[in-house]
C-alpha cells in the first residue's frame, strides 16, 4: 500500500509537470500568427479532450506497443515498469489538452497593450511570452489551473485499469488477497482527500502570495 501511495504521487507529480510544460506550448501555438501551428494545437486539444482518459490509458498500454516496429513493441511489453510509463504518457496527453485550454483563455484575456508595450521596447517574441505574457497568464488562471491539477491527481486512480501499481490498484489487491477491502479503501480515500486538500491549500497560498499581481491584472482588464 505504501508503494501504491508512492506510485500514485509519482504519476501525479510527473504528469502535472509535463502537462504544464506541454500545455503552455500548445496554448502558445494556438495563439500563434502562423496558421498551421494554430490548427495543429486545435486538433491536439480536440482529440485528447473529447476522448475519455481511460481510452488513452488502454491505448498507450495495449495498442501503442503493437503499432511500433515489433522489436521495440516487444521490449516495451516486457518492460516491467511499462504500465507506469504508459500511465504517465496517457495522463500527460489527457491533462495537457485541458491545461492548454485554461492557459489559452488566460492568454487571450491579457490586454493587447501589454504585448504592444513589450514589442515597443524591443523584446523578441519569445521574450514577450517569457517575461510579460505568460507570467501574467499563470497568475490569472491559478484557480482553474489548480482545480485541473487536483482533477489530474484523482485521475491517477484510472491507471489501475492497466495494472499500474498505484494506490487504487493496491487497494484492490488487498481486497482480493485479504478481504480487508473496507479498511484499505478507507485509508485510500483519506489519502486522496488529504492530498487534494493540501493541493487546494497550496493554490490558495499561491493566490495570496500573488494577490497584488492578480488584482492588478484583473483591474487593468476592466479599464
Amino acid at each position, binding site marked *: 500500500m505504501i508503494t501504491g501511495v508512492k506510485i500514485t504521487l509519482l504519476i501525479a507529480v510527473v504528469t502535472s509537470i509535463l502537462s504544464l510544460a506541454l500545455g503552455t506550448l500548445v496554448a502558445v501555438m494556438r495563439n500563434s500568427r502562423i496558421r498551421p501551428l494554430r490548427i495543429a494545437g486545435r486538433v491536439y486539444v480536440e482529440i485528447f479532450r473529447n476522448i475519455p482518459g481511460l481510452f488513452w490509458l488502454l491505448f498507450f498500454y495495449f495498442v501503442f506497443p503493437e503499432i511500433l516496429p515489433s522489436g521495440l513493441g516487444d521490449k516495451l511489453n516486457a518492460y516491467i515498469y511499462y504500465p507506469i510509463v504508459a500511465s504517465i504518457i496517457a495522463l500527460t496527453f489527457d491533462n495537457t489538452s485541458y491545461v492548454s485550454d485554461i492557459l489559452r483563455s488566460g492568454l487571450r484575456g491579457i*490586454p493587447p*497593450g*501589454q504585448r*504592444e*508595450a*513589450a*514589442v*515597443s*521596447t*524591443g*523584446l*523578441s517574441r519569445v*521574450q514577450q511570452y517569457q*517575461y*510579460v505574457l505568460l*507570467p*501574467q497568464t499563470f*497568475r490569472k488562471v491559478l484557480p482553474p489551473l489548480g482545480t485541473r491539477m487536483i482533477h489530474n491527481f484523482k485521475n491517477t486512480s484510472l491507471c489501475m485499469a492497466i495494472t499500474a501499481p498505484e494506490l487504487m490498484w493496491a487497494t484492490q489487491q488487498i481486497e482480493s488477497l485479504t478481504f480487508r477491502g473496507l479498511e484499505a479503501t478507507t485509508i485510500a480515500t483519506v489519502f486522496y482527500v488529504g492530498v487534494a486538500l493540501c493541493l487546494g491549500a497550496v493554490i490558495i497560498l499561491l493566490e495570496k502570495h*500573488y494577490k*497584488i*499581481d492578480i*488584482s*492588478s*491584472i484583473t*483591474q*487593468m482588464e476592466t*479599464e
Partner: protein
Amino acid sequence: MIKFVNVNKWFGHTHVLKNINLEISKGEVIVICGPSGGGKSTLIRTINKIEPIQQGEIVVDGISLANSKTDVTAIRAEIGMVFQHFNLYPHKTALENIMLAPMRVRGLNKKQAKERALRLMERVGLADKSDMYPIQLSGGEQQRVAIARSLAMEPKIMLFDEPTSALDPELISEVLDVMTSLAQEGITMVIITHEMGFAQRVADRVVFIDKGEILEVEKPSDIFVNPKHERTMEFMSKILHIPLSTNKK
C-alpha cells in the same frame, strides 16, 4: 530621422492613412492633433511597425521599414513608446518594469540595469516609489514610470500616444513637465495630444490630421492663431474654446 513617403493604409475597406508625406528631422518635436478616428494613433504606430502599412515607405534613421531584411526588433529598441493607458506590466514593480528591456535586449547586468532604473525614477520624480506595483501608483505616476521605462532603452525617438488623455486633470501637468524637460534635451519626439498649451510651448511643428489625411503642417504659432484650412479652424476653435476665423469669408 523619420520619413513618410506616400504612405497608405487600410483597415479592411476603410482607408485610414491617405498619401502621408512627412519628414521629421533629428531633435524635432512634432505634435499631432486632429479629431478622433482621424488616423493619428495609426500614424504614430506605423513608425515602430506595430501597425504595418500596405503602400509607400517609412524610413527611420536611414533604415527602411519596408525592406524585408530590416530587423524590426532592433529598430523598435531605438524607439520608445508611451501609451494612453500606460501599459505597465502589472506583475512587476516600477523598478522591474524599467529594468526588463535593458537587461533582456541591451544585455545589461542586473546591477547596471538597476542603477539606470533608479536614476530614471529619480528623474521622473518618483525615487521613493521604486518598489511599488503599478496598481499602487496614481495614473500620473504610472505614466511617468512608463516614460522612464521607454527612456531606459536610451531611444533616439520617443512616441507619445495621447499620454495624458486617461489622467485626472490635476495629474496632467506632472506628466507634461517630464515631457517638456525631454523636449529640451533634444530627443526626437512625436506626440499626439490635445494639450494645446503644451503644444504651443514645446512643439517645433504641429501636424493636423483629419480623415486619414495631413491637412496642415505648421509652426504652432501659425496653426493656432491663423489656421489655413477650414477643418483645422473648426477643430482649433472647439478645442481652445475660442472662436477663430480664417482670412477668407
